């Protein structure tokens, strides 16, 4: 799959798809470029040849009908994995996604829509294509949102998402596809939806993050460690509904919270996390929680601007210092 027995992020997604297609005859793939259209670097590459067109369905570009059709597949007992060419296209199918998310509740539990919407986000092509739609869907009841930050998590979370009976928006960092590599066990890997992972233990601050920002956060944590600040970095992985138990346990120890998100600040996933922490743990916080986020603008094309968009190691470590300097 990858050089040196290491699996790339894209390879891990491919492995998850392959294993689930092989395991369960109900699983199928549908998308615009999941068959002949998938280049070698794309997660779906090769699966059409392995599983045939009745399992891997390459269909014309049309985002809204794609989600509608996947809902129809689900109503017939299948478990479709939809691939959007890029995540911002979820805007074109917004209503169909909301409808799928409402299905189980609307039918008083008699129907459900076990579909996974795989959506790569973030390229340096255009503000539009680079957009991650997590904020758009933060207020859609019935939907789960998953953003894996490692090949292992991509593998285990995608398999879990496929087995889950609810619609899952599965956001893939496009720049991870070939850049992240990891040696993976051959065993059946499942990472439960809604479980966070503590990437780094710490006692002073709880840093909550996900996706690409995990790497920025880890580096910042190392940097401030030199100054004696012990940061616990929690990768939420499933951002909605998130793992409130792991978060609560950490906050109880640290009493300080920093939320780091790569997306614009206002109305993002971090807003809901901050709000629920303020309610549930406000009395335990020694200092006000903080968010470090991108500004409220689209993702810019020029590298010089892009470098100023997502929080960098400097901004995160500054925030960690600030949070420690605040009086209890």
């Amino acid at each position: 799959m990858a050089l040196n027995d290491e699996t790339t992020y894209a390879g891990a997604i491919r492995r998850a798809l392959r294993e689930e297609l092989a395991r369960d005859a109900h699983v199928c793939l549908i998308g615009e470029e999941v068959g002949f259209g998938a280049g070698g670097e794309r997660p779906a590459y090769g699966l059409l040849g392995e599983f045939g067109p009745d399992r891997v369905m390459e269909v014309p570009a049309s985002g809204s009908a794609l989600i509608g059709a996947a809902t129809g597949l689900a109503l017939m007992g299948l478990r479709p994995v939809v691939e959007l060419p890029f995540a911002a296209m979820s805007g074109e199918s917004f209503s169909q996604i909301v409808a799928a998310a409402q299905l189980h509740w609307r039918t008083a539990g008699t129907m459900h829509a076990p579909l996974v919407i795989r959506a790569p986000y973030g390229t340096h092509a255009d503000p539009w294509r680079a957009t991650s739609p997590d904020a758009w869907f933060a207020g859609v009841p019935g939907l789960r949102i998953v953003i894996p930050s490692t090949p292992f998590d991509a593998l285990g979370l995608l398999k879990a998402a496929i087995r889950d009976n609810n619609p899952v928006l599965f956001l893939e960092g496009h720049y991870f596809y070939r850049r992240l590599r990891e040696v993976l066990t051959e065993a059946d890997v499942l990472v439960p939806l809604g479980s966070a992972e503590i990437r780094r233990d710490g006692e002073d601050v709880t840093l909550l993050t996900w996706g690409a920002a995990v790497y920025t956060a880890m580096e910042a944590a190392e940097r401030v460690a030199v100054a004696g600040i012990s940061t616990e970095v929690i990768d939420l992985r499933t951002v909605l509904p998130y793992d409130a138990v792991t978060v609560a346990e950490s906050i109880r120890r640290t009493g300080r919270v920093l939320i780091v998100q790569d997306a614009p600040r206002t109305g993002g996933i971090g807003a809901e996390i901050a709000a629920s922490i303020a309610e549930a743990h406000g009395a335990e916080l020694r200092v006000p929680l903080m968010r470090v986020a991108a500004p409220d603008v689209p993702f810019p094309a020029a590298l010089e601007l892009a470098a100023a968009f997502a929080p960098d190691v400097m901004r995160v470590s500054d925030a960690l210092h600030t949070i420690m300097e605040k009086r209890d």
Partner: protein
Amino acid sequence: MSTPPNPLLALYQQMSLTRALEDAIRDLVRSRQILGTLHVGRGHEAVTTGTTAALARGDIVAPGGRDLGVLLARGIAPRQILAQWLRRAAAPSGGRTGAMHFGDMRDALVIPATALPTLAVAVGTALATKARGENRVTVAYLEDTATNTGDFHEAMNLAATQDLPVICVVATNTYVGKLATRPYRPKHLADRAAAYGIPGYVVDGGDVLAVREAMTHAVALARAGRGPVLLEAKIFRVAGQTEADSVPRETLDEWRARDPIERFTRHLLALDALSDALTYEFAAATLATVQDALAYAQHAPAPDPLSLMDHRFAPDDALVMGPPVEAPVGMTGERVLPWR
């Protein structure tokens, strides 16, 4: 001269029951027992009855908000329908949705309606049947203006490129909401078939036998793997769009002459298939069915407010959905209405 019971009478009964049940719903709306509006299907009965008469038991339907007759033809019980309209606990949606926003994917094979057109969902069920090698067709029912939405276009294109067995039935009733205007430029909506390289037919939607014939042809094409068909039924809505609209007397007279039930009644009388006695007998049976459903639904308990938060997420052990996987029996044509 008397004949053995004519099979056409089943069509007559179904159209009559559709009308009678909708009238009951209308009265519930008028008396404010049902809140919200009724999107009137008066005048659509030949379309719902004629198209479903050409289907087999394993076929799938996606009715819209006006297609009460489709639900009845698929065996959904009038009791269920009225409980749904009255938003009772025992309704298929447990009172969470109203009107005809419910379905049944195990037996009746009715895709649940939302406020969105369900054509794209219907294309998905057809994709599933094709992938599994089943010989089912899926029929989606649309109102005319729904063909102006982006979802219609994307779904039809998807169905066409994959040669899916989807029949899209468009009931063109000359009205858009309160207005007798056409929010599209081609003469026929069936002309939109050209955009997908598929056949498009126009049929007189006030003539139940013509509808059944056209639909039988469309179903044959779809079953033969020839891809989707667009079937436009030209009709005449014989009431306001909603009960809120008032209609002048002259218009009502014009409507009457075009009423599909009255037209079919005249046809059956001319054939001697229907007699006054039979008419009364059927009317009594229809009335009994409607009154039974009314009594049931009106006395059914309201949903428990505590149930609001149930079913937020589907559990891990949710049943596998969808109809049994076997290919459907190829049975078509008239059949005993299962709710009787």
